[in-house]
């Protein structure tokens, strides 16, 4: 690429509102970092002397590990803090925690929190760069970026693709970040799921909305299945996992409605046999583990773009 897309954000809080240029800058920067993780020595000195704090108010294995490895492969000092909800309840306010951490001079705060808007709240009150690693049911921007990275590698482009995002859209921060990113890059998004899990106003986000999977899958280039939270099942949202799987799960017969070369994605963790049939999850069109691999590279790119000294702002991979 002759001209590099520019990224001049101070934080990564949401995809909504991010310029196309900034998105492309992350995706482009992730390419060389992807190769770093495949070398025998998986480390570059880019963020030596920088401190990254992973502040996780929600349990997470995949995302926290991915951010931790991303920081370590960039040679940053990485500290993980897991705050269980119970200790937060009896303990200090989010604002006080942030102020205390800030006093230790971190360069980046990676935050996961159950409250929508928590990352923006923190960003407005700290000098550190803040990366939203999932805030409530609002956004999970690095997930959308790693999804886009994966799609681009698999399909060679994003513009013009038909992407079906299926399942529990109501509670999904992944869905919100993805619709913002994909529409910004020129893809067409279709949402599908039971009406109890489709919030109002999805059309205003630039998507088509279906209450069955089949019409959404028809001719799709990418099929993204969302996790159904166990606690939504058997309540007033959904009667049972059995019926959900039967009507809204992705199986081989339904996948046949999509384009022959369609890829299958899932942000994880999967409920096998509920939203996705094992034969599809493990099948030839699944890129689910590619997404996980891309996650480290994309997060390296984000940390690098936010924390590297200006002189270091050329991927040194």
């Amino acid at each position, binding site marked *: 690429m002759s001209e590099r897309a520019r990224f001049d954000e101070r934080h990564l809080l949401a995809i909504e509102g991010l310029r196309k240029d900034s998105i492309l800058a992350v995706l482009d920067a992730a390419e060389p970092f992807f190769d770093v993780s495949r070398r025998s020595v998986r480390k570059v000195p880019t963020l030596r002397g920088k401190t990254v704090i992973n502040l996780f108010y929600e349990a997470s294995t995949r995302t926290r590990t991915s951010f931790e490895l991303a920081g370590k492969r960039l040679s940053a000092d990485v500290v993980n803090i897991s705050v269980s909800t119970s200790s937060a309840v009896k303990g200090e306010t*989010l604002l006080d925690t942030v102020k205390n951490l800030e006093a230790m001079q971190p360069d980046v705060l990676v935050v996961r929190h159950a409250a929508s808007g928590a990352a923006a709240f923190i960003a407005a009150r700290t000098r550190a760069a803040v990366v939203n690693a999932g805030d409530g049911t609002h956004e999970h921007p690095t997930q959308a970026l790693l999804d886009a990275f994966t799609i681009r590698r698999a399909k060679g482009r994003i513009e013009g693709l038909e992407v079906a995002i299926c399942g529990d859209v109501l509670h999904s921060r992944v869905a919100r970040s993805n619709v913002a990113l994909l529409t910004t890059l020129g893809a067409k998004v279709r949402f599908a799921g039971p009406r109890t899990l489709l919030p109002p106003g999805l059309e205003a*986000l630039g998507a088509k909305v279906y209450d069955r999977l089949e019409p959404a899958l028809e001719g799709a280039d990418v099929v993204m299945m969302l996790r159904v939270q166990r606690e939504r099942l058997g309540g007033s949202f959904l009667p049972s996992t059995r019926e959900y799987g039967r009507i809204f799960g992705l199986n081989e017969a339904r996948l046949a409605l999509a384009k022959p070369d369609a890829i299958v994605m899932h942000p994880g963790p999967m409920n096998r046999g509920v939203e996705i049939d094992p034969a599809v999850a493990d099948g030839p069109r699944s890129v689910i583990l590619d997404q996980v691999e891309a996650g480290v590279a994309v997060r390296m790119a984000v940390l690098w773009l936010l924390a590297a000294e200006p002189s270091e702002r050329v991927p040194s991979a």
Partner: protein
Amino acid sequence: MSSTRSPSPRAASRLLVVTDVRAIDPAIGLDALIDLVIEDGLLTRAGVGAATAEIRASERAQVVSGSGLWALPAFVDLHAHLREPGQEYKEDIASGLAAAAAGGFAHVCVMPNTRPVNDTRSITVAMLARAREVGGPALHPIGAITMGQKGAELTEMGDLKDAGAVAVSDDGRCVTNSAVMRRALEYASNFDLPVIQHAEDHALTEGAQMHEGALSTRLGLRGWPRVAEDVIVARDLLLAEAIGARYHVAHVSSLGSVRLLREAKARGVKVSAEVTPHHLTLTDASVLGYDTACKVNPPLREQADVDALRAALADGTIDAIATDHAPHSSLEKDCEFAEASPGMIGLELVVPLLLGLVREGALPLARLVDALTRAPARIVGLAAPTLREGATAEICLVDPARTYTIEAARLRSKSKNTPFLGRTVTGAVRMTLAGGRVVFDAFGGEG
């Protein structure tokens, strides 16, 4: 005022004269440029040339030039939270009444969700005693409908009324149980107390953070659908109609409720309703950026709702404007959106916020005045402030052209939780008289 009381040294100087003021009181068909003479707490003369040269020259007269000002009957608020007893760090009766005075109010009805809840005579009595100590605008307690606002056992409404309560409400909580609501309407009507409902089907709003719509989807905040208000209003209207009881809907927010109210009033149901300044002026777009100052209950809705509320206020379907003044400290507001308490302060901002509607032509001035004075007074059975000669002086002087910026430091409320900080507005209360006494005077020496 007792006639046996010996005159205090200040009594001799109790003569307030307002000259050439535009006096507006739609209840008596008044809108004219006149003089007002207030002597010993009574509006003794109101008319052209009432302030004679002799009166103006009197040594004991304070003369205020009313040129460019409006004189209105002082306001009546149906819905304020003054937080005393129990949460005095947010507001107390003294600071709340000071804020009310600065906002032009002579009467403030206070909601019972104090700590403890105002569900018994002794708490009502204590609140009134404290208000008398403080002075200023009159405080009128609203008793709870159910003990502890728990929605189950009725309060002793007869006792509450005898102690001075003017209505009953479980505000903040909705009486969702239909049997309890039926009995509440029946029992309250025994004492001619209006039942004020906070209309919210809590089962439909569990965890709700803002209006349910395209923006709640974008922000990932749990939605509070309009229909959660509408289903309660619809049910209550049917109950009130069947029982023949007085029913009042607090802080109407949805266009669906407006439609239901209009239909019910056309059928002759004894229903009244109020709307807040913020529901008349803000939409859910204010929540973008997770501004906790804009988290209120019921939530700010869409432009279509704002339009419906304005039309309903203008045509009288919604009777009154009420502030829902809800002070919260930084403890409740400087936090994650989901953790923040709902509510914003409002007592001091009614005139600057709502004169804008008059200027835009969305609301006739006479209707605005009525909705702040006679209409709310009638709902809770108070004598409405008036500019009729001989009445107790309950007057507010407004400068409709004064432009200024709303600043936290200038607000008398202990809490500063309003999204209007920093907003430049036009229209200011300059003086308020309540119960015959000056309770707020912005003229200071310049008067």
